[in-house]
């Protein structure tokens, strides 16, 4: 198993790491399989994701995925954000080892959860 350069780069210096005090929506997802947790904080204005932050307890892939995903979503509309797929995230990261593909789902689940909460 080997991580791509992009994965290691994101892991070393993750973007959008932290939390948002007065977030408009928070989503959390847990990976029951290996015991990892990810939390996403959204700041939304005019249907646009103005700011996004994450907190992750997980492997290097999970942290890199969190960083890349938040990068890809920042500034997008909610509808655009919903269209993000795990394939796109994995591509952005220059690939993930097969056993780590499920980590990319973690970020999407947390995102979808946050959006759902915001809408209701």
């Amino acid at each position, binding site marked *: 198993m080997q991580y791509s350069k992009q994965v*290691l780069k994101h892991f*070393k210096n993750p973007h959008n790491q932290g*939390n948002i005090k007065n977030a408009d929506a928070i989503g959390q997802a847990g990976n029951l399989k*290996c015991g*990892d*947790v990810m939390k996403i904080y959204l700041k939304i204005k005019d249907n646009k994701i103005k700011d996004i932050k994450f907190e992750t307890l*997980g492997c290097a892939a*999970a942290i890199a995925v969190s960083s890349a995903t938040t990068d890809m979503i920042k500034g997008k509309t909610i509808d655009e954000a919903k269209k993000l797929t795990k394939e796109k995230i994995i591509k952005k990261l220059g690939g993930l080892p097969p056993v780590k593909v499920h980590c990319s789902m973690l970020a999407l689940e947390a995102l979808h959860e946050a959006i759902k909460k915001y809408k209701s």
Partner: protein
Amino acid sequence: MNKIYLDYSATTPMDKRVAQAMLPYFCDKFGNASSIHNFGQTAMAGVDKAREQAAKFLNCEPDEIVFTSGATESNNLAITGVIKALLRQDFGGQASKQQRIKNPHIITSSIEHPAILEPCKKLEKEGVEVTYLPVKSNGVVDIEKFKKAIKKNTALVSVMHVNNEVGSIQPIREIGKTIKKINEKKLKDWKKLNPKERGEKPQPIYFHTDATQSVNYLNCDVRWNYVDMLSMSGHKIQGPKGVGVLYVKTDVPIEPLQLGGHQENGVRSGTYNVPAIVGIGKAIELIENRKAKKQGKKKAGAAKSVEANNLKIAKLRNMLVDGIIKNIPNVVLNTDRKNAVPSHANFSFLGVEGESILISLDLEGVAVSTGSACASGKLEASHVLLAMGIKQEIAHSSIRFSLGKYTTEAEIKKVIKILPPIIKKLRRMSPEL
């Protein structure tokens, strides 16, 4: 960047003297050791020497040494080979009629290497009974539980000498002694019976130990430990990869797993891997010499394990442990230092995932391993830590440091400096739960 290797439990760098001993056997002394001509005999002389080196170290006869491709094969051969020999009706030669047994029972431990557990599970599917002994919270098999697990049809016991993940030392000598007593009593009772009615001799229990992790540090004398079979590996003892030893006591029935040219008395067919065999012999000899030098000639036994190399590594390990505990809050030491070899320190850094620690350390040039589910391929936490009663989330944050022959004080000091900011950074990233 100077790299720091603290994963000796995974593999060790080869001693240069071992490499040197191997070199002539690649190009010059290339013969097939089974050939009768001079080329073959020159190669065979190398194999013979290694066999003697191994036999001396284990205190057994040279023809009780079987060279294999490594500890995995040794373990598979010991478990499956013995059970198959006991089950097989038409197994000629070694397994006499008396030794046949219908429903053999195996006792092993829940913290064995997969190279023991997997063959046991496979035999279980084929109808063989297997007991997996639990361990105490310090990772040591409870000898009383072992005694209770013995049944009338117990035919094979396999308990590792030292656990590879936490370094815990298993009471193999006590287990061996217990088995010996039972075997002797069975035979004595049998002899008292009327020769016409007593039937076949009773089936003895055979005892195997996987000594892969102990050779560097503990006394592996097979007589002193009362073992019938013992596995070891070349690359864990500053020797080459792809070679191992299985000691098999003369009277233990064993069926080969691979058939062919009848090498190793038919127990293990396959062209002799001469350079590697020469290498493992040399690696064993270097350990033997080191141990002998320190203790003088006088005593075998426990004293053999206390020697300078162990003390040096134990000192470095303790320095690492103390440094980590002093500089990082919320850590758990999973290695019970009183019952472990000096090389291991298995820690849990609560609130952080192990693989992310491993990768962070790797980016700084430090090599360790983890029992986290995330790093396992199967996404399952270490079966050893779980068997010790450690919670899933604590196993999730475990890191194994394993030190060895070439570890230095400067390296340990550097790790103690590098580690705290890594843990701090990763902890900051974690959500509050």
